[in-house]
């Protein structure tokens, strides 16, 4: 089972769980229709497009409404802490929510006891919490962008808003240095997929893959393009790929989806998600 957990920006939505369906430009979970906007909804839409393409079981979502106050986030943490052992997912992908180091520790301890151990992926504030809590190296995949990589490489920072200025100012050409530092300081997951002008996939031995084409600079502007990579990567891991392959294919497919959608800085993430099946077919060398 692939579980994706995170908040959605609709305060009225209670804790909901269930298999995900697609309806027009929305995902549907437990009867709630949630548009594909930036965040966990975009990640789920990309994961669902991928599981559909591969003929796999649809992802199951665990969601709660939260527009920033953190109540929905805490409900989510607590639900996962209480239920993750019974759910026992193959892949657990954690996404947008209020970082809470103590609750992240509690959840991690529950997950870590499971045999077989679920594959753990974190992006967005789940990644912030995992790193700040000193748990990064226990995760399988992180998917930071360039500024988030600087955060992972800053031993003292607990949030990207408080990284050292010289790290933020570093050019993306120096990402390999930051990757090395992040691994050395135990701020990295087992595999890093760094999203940037060149997507870099690395482990503690160094850069393993570089994905740099097609070059679609406008993708950086579009809210949700990082979420779509993480969603695809989660689904590919669920399908049995190893983490390096899953990261490389999701990074490449995201770029091709952007190219097929002919994105501009004003495009929406839904235009990219709609192209994921064709993009995956190209990357995997198959007919759509």
């Amino acid at each position: 089972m692939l579980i994706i957990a995170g908040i959605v920006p609709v305060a009225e939505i209670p804790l909901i769980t269930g298999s995900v369906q697609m309806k027009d430009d929305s995902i549907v979970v437990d009867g709630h229709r949630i548009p594909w906007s930036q965040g966990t909804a975009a990640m789920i839409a990309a994961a669902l497009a991928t599981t559909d393409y591969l003929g796999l079981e649809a992802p199951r979502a665990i969601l709660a409404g939260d527009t920033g106050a953190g109540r929905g986030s805490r409900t989510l943490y607590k639900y996962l802490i209480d239920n993750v052992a019974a759910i026992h997912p193959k892949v657990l992908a954690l996404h947008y929510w209020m970082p809470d180091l103590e609750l992240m520790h509690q959840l991690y301890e529950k997950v870590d006891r499971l045999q077989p151990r679920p594959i753990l992926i974190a992006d967005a504030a789940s990644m912030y919490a995992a790193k700040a809590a000193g748990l990064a190296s226990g995760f399988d995949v992180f998917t930071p962008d360039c500024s988030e990589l600087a955060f992972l490489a800053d031993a003292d920072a607990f949030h990207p808003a408080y990284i050292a200025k010289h790290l933020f100012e570093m050019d993306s050409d120096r990402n390999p240095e930051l990757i090395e530092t992040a691994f050395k300081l135990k701020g990295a997951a087992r595999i890093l997929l760094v999203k940037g002008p060149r997507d870099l996939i690395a482990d503690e031995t160094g850069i393993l893959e570089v994905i740099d084409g097609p070059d679609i600079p406008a993708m950086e502007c579009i809210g949700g393009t990082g979420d779509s990579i993480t969603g695809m990567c989660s689904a590919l891991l669920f399908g049995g790929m190893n983490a390096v392959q899953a990261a490389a294919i999701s990074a490449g497919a995201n770029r091709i989806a952007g190219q097929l959608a002919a994105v501009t800085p004003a495009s929406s993430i839904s235009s990219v998600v709609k192209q994921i099946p064709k993009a995956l077919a190209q990357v995997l060398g198959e007919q759509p």
Partner: protein
Amino acid sequence: MAWFGKSNKSSAAQRGKQQVESGLVIFYSVEDAIMAERILNKNDIRCRLVAPPPFLRKGCDLALEINLIQQAAVQRILQDRVPVVQISPLSGTAELLDIIKVSEYDGYTMVKAGNMKLTFENASGMIVNTSGGGCPDIPYMNIELVGKRLDQIRRPKEMGHSLCSLMLDRAAEGAQEIWEERKSQC
């Protein structure tokens, strides 16, 4: 909130974990610190009065310990009610990241502050996208901001709760300045 927990029973390791995300609000007077504690508690923001460490003693000898993730909400609630000297983390870099990076695209400008990016159309000043971030107010603010002109938005620091919202606010502020400057040159 699990951040404070039961401090007298927590282990050293737990206290260490809590300190990572803690910040201090520094005030000019003891009275201001006490008043701020009362106001924040009424607004469901957990905090406690503490003595600031020597390196943060810029005002009175009483400070408020907060969960720094909620910095935006704390700033907004105390604004115009209690004067604040500064808000600082208890560890690491003391200053919130205050620099922006600007990228130009054909007809659009992207302004990046920390982990947040905001893109506007040069001709109209309309926000066409926000991206990056990870805190729970960010997807909400994406919906609130996209499609609106830079001079017609509610600032992210007025809507948000998190450090990501403060970074998005810096990006919005930078974008407004760039757009206004370009308009004045036309």
